[in-house]
């Protein structure tokens, strides 16, 4: 009798454990404000889906990238949902590492996703990741300093105007730098900015035959303009400034202009964190009249690895987190200004959102001005605005980023940096079998 009770007990316990296990999904993510907010709001999801339990793994961006790559390449099955960017999606989808998202539900309205963003997350017309928040880049500037300089920022400035304004706004005696730009080396740091900038100068990473183009005049113009601009009007030690460093400088009133992610708008206009919250204006990223602007396109997105055993539960979660309902949920709990931006067209038509987020229109215009499938003036064999969607780009992009960061720091000349970049890119492309 005792034995039977024990056996029954054990069986039911293991059945329970199995049930709980079968329905718990693990989500890997980064520690961005919007992601943290989502973790606080998951009660809404678990109430509607009591049989699904959510486990969160939050990691530093580069560690996350390394971990999910290891897991997905070895089919480790540790994650059921992973947060990845626009760079990974086309590469991983082609390797069949991701499941296509075709069961997001009837009321999901996938057509509402901003076309430029959806395009970057699709392969052969199939969506492989759902955007959680999307961003482009634009100019954030101090309206008061611009007025003091006697200038008026156009909605769509040119690089020459930026240079002219930066020269006039720079007041180093009072700690004001005309312009703050990324200088910290990394494919997602200075190279995101410089690659997007180079598009507006008519440059490209590779020609149609994958031959690197750093020896062309367009790249020389880009890098020379950037280095000269930063030397004359940039902050001290700019070669170690990334997004967060420039954010702090701008919030402290030390930058006249800052060209960076549109998502920064909600930080610089937050009176609790920013000393210049009521003085910020927005404009499209600059151009040179060649038909391309210097703005990028990125979306932190939720994808489901092919190795998962719980695809249905995972897809339910992805659908919830990227739905219109979720945007309304955030708005009702934390206000429209805190809704994750850049994913759905309907959000930008919402008058309440337009009122709460003065940067809304400029964000949407910036996103729409980027085209990941035709990013450059001259034709290219790759997809991606501020990156090249090939596996080799992470390593190569960072190597070139280091060379350009050194040029900014004055450790090497622009010509030397470009020559070395050309050599490094040629070597990487030859090794990767792109150049035959």
């Amino acid at each position, binding site marked *: 009798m005792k034995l039977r009770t024990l056996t029954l007990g054990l069986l039911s316990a293991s059945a329970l454990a199995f049930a709980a296990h079968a329905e718990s999904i693990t989500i890997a993510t980064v520690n961005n404000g919007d992601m943290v907010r989502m973790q606080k709001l998951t009660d809404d999801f678990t109430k509607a889906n009591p049989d699904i339990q959510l486990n969160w793994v939050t990691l530093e961006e580069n560690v996350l990238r390394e*971990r999910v790559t290891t897991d997905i390449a070895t089919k480790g099955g540790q*994650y059921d949902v992973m947060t990845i960017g626009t760079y990974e999606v086309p590469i991983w989808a082609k390797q069949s590492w991701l499941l296509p998202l075709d069961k997001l539900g009837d009321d999901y309205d996938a057509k509402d996703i901003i076309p430029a963003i959806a395009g970057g997350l699709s392969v052969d017309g199939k969506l492989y990741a759902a955007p959680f928040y999307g961003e482009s880049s634009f100019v954030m500037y101090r309206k008061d300093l611009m007025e003091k300089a006697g200038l008026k920022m156009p909605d769509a400035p040119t690089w020459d105007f930026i240079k002219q304004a930066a020269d006039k706004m720079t007041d180093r005696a009072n700690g004001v730098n005309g312009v703050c730009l990324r200088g910290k080396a990394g494919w997602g740091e200075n190279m995101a900015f410089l690659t997007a900038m180079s598009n507006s100068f008519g440059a490209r990473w590779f020609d149609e035959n994958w031959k690197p183009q750093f020896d062309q005049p367009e790249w020389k113009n880009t890098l020379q303009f950037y280095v000269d601009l930063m030397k004359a009007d940039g902050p001290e030690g700019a070669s170690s400034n990334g*997004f967060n460093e420039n954010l702090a400088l701008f919030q402290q009133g030390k930058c006249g202009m800052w060209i960076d992610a549109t998502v920064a708008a909600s930080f610089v206009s937050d009176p609790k964190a920013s000393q210049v919250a009521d003085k910020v204006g927005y404009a499209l990223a600059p151009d040179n009249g060649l038909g391309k602007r210097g703005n990028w396109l990125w979306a932190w997105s939720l994808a489901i690895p092919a190795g998962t055993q719980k695809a249905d539960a995972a897809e339910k979660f992805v659908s919830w987190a990227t739905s219109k309902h979720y945007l309304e949920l955030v708005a009702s709990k934390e206000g429209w200004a805190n809704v994750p931006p850049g994913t759905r067209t309907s959000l930008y038509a919402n008058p309440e959102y337009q009122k709460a987020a003065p940067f809304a229109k400029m964000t949407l215009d910036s996103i729409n001005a980027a085209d990941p499938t035709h990013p450059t003036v001259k034709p290219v064999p790759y997809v991606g605005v501020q990156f090249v969607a090939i596996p080799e780009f992470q390593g190569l992009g960072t190597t070139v980023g280091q060379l350009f960061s050194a040029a900014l720091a004055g450790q090497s000349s622009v010509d030397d940096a470009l020559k070395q970049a050309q050599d490094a890119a040629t070597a990487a492309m030859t090794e990767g079998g792109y150049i035959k």
Partner: protein
Amino acid sequence: MARAVTTRHKTIATAAAWIVALLIFFPILYTIITSFKSEQEAIQGFSLLPSGTMESYTEVEAQRGYFKFFLNSVVLSVGSTVLALVIAIPAAWSMAFSPTKRTKDILMWMLSTKMMPAVAVLFPIYLIFRDTGLLDSRVGLTVMLMLINLPIVVWMLYTYFREIPGEILEAARMDGASLWNEIIYVLTPMAVPGIASTMLLNIILAWNEAFWTIRLTTTNAAPLTAFISSFSSPQGLFWAKLSAASTLAIAPILIMGWFSQKQLVRGLTFGAVK
């Protein structure tokens, strides 16, 4: 006169020791100071005077519970150290008291495993863990940490055991003690200070191990290293929160180290006086 010189030398030596100690401790001190700043203050430049806000601690605890990570750190560091001692004591005994001509080579070979960068074996280890179902399990990670630290444990114990006169063990044997009794009742009690410092040092090493503990865990077995790493943010200020998380993570081990500093110093300087 001679006395005066000695005092002066002493003063200089003491001052130098303090300067070196402060230099070494400064990053930790600055982390603690930063944890009591707001995010704005934290990035504003160097300052030793925080506003004393506790908002980072509240935020860190609200975002991710500390206790689960703490518990995993305790289980992993203590578990792996105990397991390592169980294996290393007999190993070090045999090398110290009945060495062969290959003993030195074996010791060197064991240490050489520490010379390889961990990332070189990431994929094989990850695959083994995947196939044996050990990913994100405390058991798997305990074994992994034990293996990582085993060479150091063996080396430290070997050095301590060498200081114990072999004649005492011989005497025990003459009195009829079996091998097992000899190790348990004669050798171990005499080597307690050495074993204790080895244990403490290895708990610290396991507590701070950040490569494997982050890469082989997801949620169930994630220790404090994963807790710290989760507060770095690509878009948004995070220095104060990261400092608060780091302070919370190092506090237990710092307190433990403080109370056991005598053993630790002996452990860290073993062999230095020979």
